[in-house]
């Protein structure tokens, strides 16, 4: 590997508030997990609302779900699973000190995240075109079934919130890629790649739940 540092040289710079580098690594990981747990609870409330609507209004929720773009949702799930693999690749290569490969994996992850957003945008456009946005001041295709509005509102809030997380994730990833392309990054801040990787895998995890809860279970 021509553009690599040895695995022994991969390290982090000890901040003054920590006793050892191991402690610093563990605290970073624990801090990210503490935040991810609060994010999990945020999304869980939305999943719970969707399930309650399914129990309360089964026929209307099934009707609304049949209008969702099942195959775009499935394709997007596959795209995010691929991005998880490339993110894992970036983490592994950062541990090995293979900088060029790591940067390639990070850029591939950002590209896959962007592809997800493009497909999601196309899905929203199709929904708009088919008058499936009940919150807009325009005709609504399922106006004769008022309960479908509730489910579609949950659908847009959940997928929109996930999209915001993905936009944030891609933005941070691009900045991190730029930082990681500088010399000595892996000798001083390798754990940033691992901590960020947790966030990316979490975005994937949430979508793995969103897809069945909104698109599959209600069909």
């Amino acid at each position, binding site marked *: *590997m021509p553009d690599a540092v040895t695995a022994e040289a991969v390290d982090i710079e000890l901040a003054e508030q920590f006793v050892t580098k191991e402690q610093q690594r*563990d605290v970073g*990981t*624990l801090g990210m*997990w*503490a935040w*991810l*747990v609060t994010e*999990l*609870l945020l999304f*869980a*409330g939305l999943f*719970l609302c969707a*399930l*309650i609507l399914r*129990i*309360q209004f089964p026929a209307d929720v099934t009707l609304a779900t049949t209008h969702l773009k*099942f195959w775009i949702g*499935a394709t997007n*799930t*596959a795209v995010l*699973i*691929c991005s*998880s*693999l490339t993110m*894992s*690749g970036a983490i*592994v290569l950062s*541990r*090995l000190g293979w900088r060029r490969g790591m940067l390639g994996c990070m850029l591939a992850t950002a590209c896959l995240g962007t592809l997800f957003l493009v497909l999601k945008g196309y899905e929203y456009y199709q929904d708009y075109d088919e008058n499936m946005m009940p919150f807009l001041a325009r005709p609504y295709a399922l106006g004769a079934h008022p309960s479908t509005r509730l489910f579609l509102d949950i659908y847009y809030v959940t997928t929109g919130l996930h999209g915001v997380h993905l936009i944030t994730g891609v933005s941070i990833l691009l900045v991190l890629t730029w930082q990681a392309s500088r010399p000595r990054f892996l000798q001083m801040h390798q754990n940033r790649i691992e901590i960020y990787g*947790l966030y990316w*895998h*979490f975005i*994937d*995890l949430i979508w*793995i*739940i969103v*897809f*069945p809860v909104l*698109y*599959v*279970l209600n*069909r």
Partner: protein
Amino acid sequence: MTREDRATLWRHMRAPVLSFVALMALLAVNVVLGATLPFRAVWVAEAVVVVCMVLTVLLVSMEVWSEPPLVRVFSALGFFWLLILFGMTLVDYLTR
């Protein structure tokens, strides 16, 4: 890249690649079930597949299995709170 480099890379990437294959296979199962609806209680099978996918991401991709005990406790607690949230709320709706 030398043969030794390739061997090193595969040794470290084996778990992520295997979890990727498992996740894609589980997704395929759920997509087929969702598209064909082969039996009445298909949602039970779909839910089981989702739980398997979530566990795969948590334990392999997010490496919870190899984290220090405190991190494992944090991640487990998050899902424990979800059990309380879902359990208590659904008991109300399902028993009305």
